[in-house]
């Protein structure tokens, strides 16, 4: 169902990085204050909040919200693995679209560095039946199969990673901002993590927070008459549908094809298609994923991703630039906040405020994430 009558009123994020001395609640507060300021309001004007985090904990969402104020607003913790931020945004957009809130906040924070440090010490990667496959290995399995099926070479994955590192250099809010042009050779020469993926093809472990405020379109037009209004028009969320070859045991994010059915649903709900998009953000926790999503999001046919990449179509300046902010690989992927960083980038682009990385004339954007378990979400935004 198309989302009607909701628009983004404010965005804010704390640059993803390692913050050993700052609590998650304080990172959330700072992102929330930036978004409130961007919207021109205080928490008193917010009718409902959805707080996203992945870290295994209860009740800390509302504790984080208290750092922004105690206004009595409804607060609900939303979690959907790596898709958490976009799903919190979806809830906020629907709270507004359904009329139960005039202004709703989606806010997320996580400290991956804490989670890595506090992970069970027995997690040696091979002494638990249900944990033998780490995310890097899991996506490496995709990469190996793709190389087998389509003749894809590690150079293709490296080219995507290099592109996203170099996009990150143009984004002041990117975790990784290389001081030189990252090359395919450099990516390939970095530590081999799991055949054929290297460390520079993977997202970093970082901390961060991000926030987006959604309001009724009327509210946004009234309060922000001089700004281009960016509206979420579709938010499709799917879990895994059964198909032969489904794996049940071990960390999974579902078959790659989840992205195809979820994108189809989003396009249908919005009455739009891939050709209408001016930029796309996708779950590039590992570079080879982006190649799959070129096809699964409908930007080229099956097995044509490499050609799209080689033509430069998915780089800034190309036909459909992917991960203009650096993606998970450069901008970072703390967990819950990742999806809201995507909203931050799409809104910045559609407002025309993306500076050196501006996609000229961008009017429509897509944000996609997959999450362990497994879920997939595809969100479409447009401006007038």
């Amino acid at each position, binding site marked *: 169902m198309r989302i009607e009558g909701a628009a983004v009123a404010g965005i804010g994020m704390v640059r993803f990085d390692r913050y050993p001395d700052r609590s998650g609640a304080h990172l959330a507060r700072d992102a929330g204050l930036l978004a409130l300021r961007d919207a021109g309001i205080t928490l008193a004007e917010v009718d409902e909040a959805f707080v996203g985090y992945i870290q295994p904990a209860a009740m800390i969402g509302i504790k984080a919200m208290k750092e922004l104020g105690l206004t009595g607003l409804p607060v609900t913790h939303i979690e959907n693995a790596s898709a958490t931020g976009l799903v919190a945004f979806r809830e906020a957009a629907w709270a507004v679209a359904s009329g139960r809130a005039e202004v709703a906040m989606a806010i997320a924070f996580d400290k*991956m560095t804490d989670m*890595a*440090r506090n*992970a069970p*010490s027995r*997690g*040696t*990667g*091979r*002494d*638990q*039946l*249900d944990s*033998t*496959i*780490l995310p*890097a*290995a899991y996506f*490496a*399995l*995709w*990469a*190996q*199969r793709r190389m*087998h099926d389509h003749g894809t070479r590690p150079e293709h994955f490296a080219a995507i990673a290099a592109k996203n590192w170099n996009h990150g250099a143009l984004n002041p809010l990117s975790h990784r901002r290389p001081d030189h042009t990252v090359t395919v050779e450099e990516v390939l020469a970095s*530590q*081999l*993590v*799991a*055949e054929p*993926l290297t*460390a520079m093809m*993977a997202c*970093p*472990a970082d901390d961060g927070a991000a926030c987006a405020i959604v309001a009724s379109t009327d509210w946004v037009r009234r309060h922000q008459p001089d700004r281009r209004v960016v509206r979420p028009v579709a938010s499709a969320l799917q879990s895994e549908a*059964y198909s*032969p*070859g*489904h*794996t*049940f*045991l*071990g960390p*999974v994010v579902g078959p790659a094809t989840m992205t195809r059915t979820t994108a189809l649903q989003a396009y249908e709900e919005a009455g739009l298609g891939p050709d209408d998009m001016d930029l796309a953000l996708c779950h590039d926790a590992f570079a080879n994923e982006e190649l799959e999503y070129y096809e699964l999001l409908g930007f080229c046919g099956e097995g044509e991703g490499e050609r799209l990449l080689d033509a430069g179509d998915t780089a800034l300046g190309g036909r459909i630039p992917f991960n203009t902010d650096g993606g998970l690989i450069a901008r970072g992927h703390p967990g819950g906040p990742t999806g809201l960083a995507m909203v931050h980038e799409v809104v910045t682009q559609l407002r025309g405020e993306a500076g050196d990385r501006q996609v000229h004339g961008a009017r429509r954007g897509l944000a996609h994430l997959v999450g362990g378990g497994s879920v997939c979400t595809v969100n479409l935004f447009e401006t007038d």
Partner: protein
Amino acid sequence: MARVAIEEGYFTVPDDPAEAPRLLGSRCGACGEHFFPRRQVCARCLHDGCDDVELGPTGRLWTWTYVHVPLFAKKNAKVSAYGVGQVDLPEGPRVQALLVGGPDDFEIGMEMVLDLETLRTDDDGNDVVIMRFSPHRAAGAHEGGERP
């Protein structure tokens, strides 16, 4: 001296160490689809009533990787590299598991066989075992070969 599974309900632990273990799966009473691990409700047709069956022990390698940094992004790694893969059982299920061997030992489509690795000894002196797949030396490794 006995061998015990790291977690019950996933694979058999034969008394004879030379005998291959089997996977503990389910078969839907309505549509016949097989699953690993066991489940009660059929994931394909939603029928509530799957029956216990044993699956494997052989299968074909769908994809594999070799993990060089087992605790990637965690700093206190003290374990060695290892292979992981997805193996298609003749009954249908695709199983993610550890692989035995080095990065040069695997090829997509090759025949694999389930075996058990001893991880440690528990307080009762039993060997705690985990399941894994090894290349099936006796079988052809080329894709499209007939299943045994």
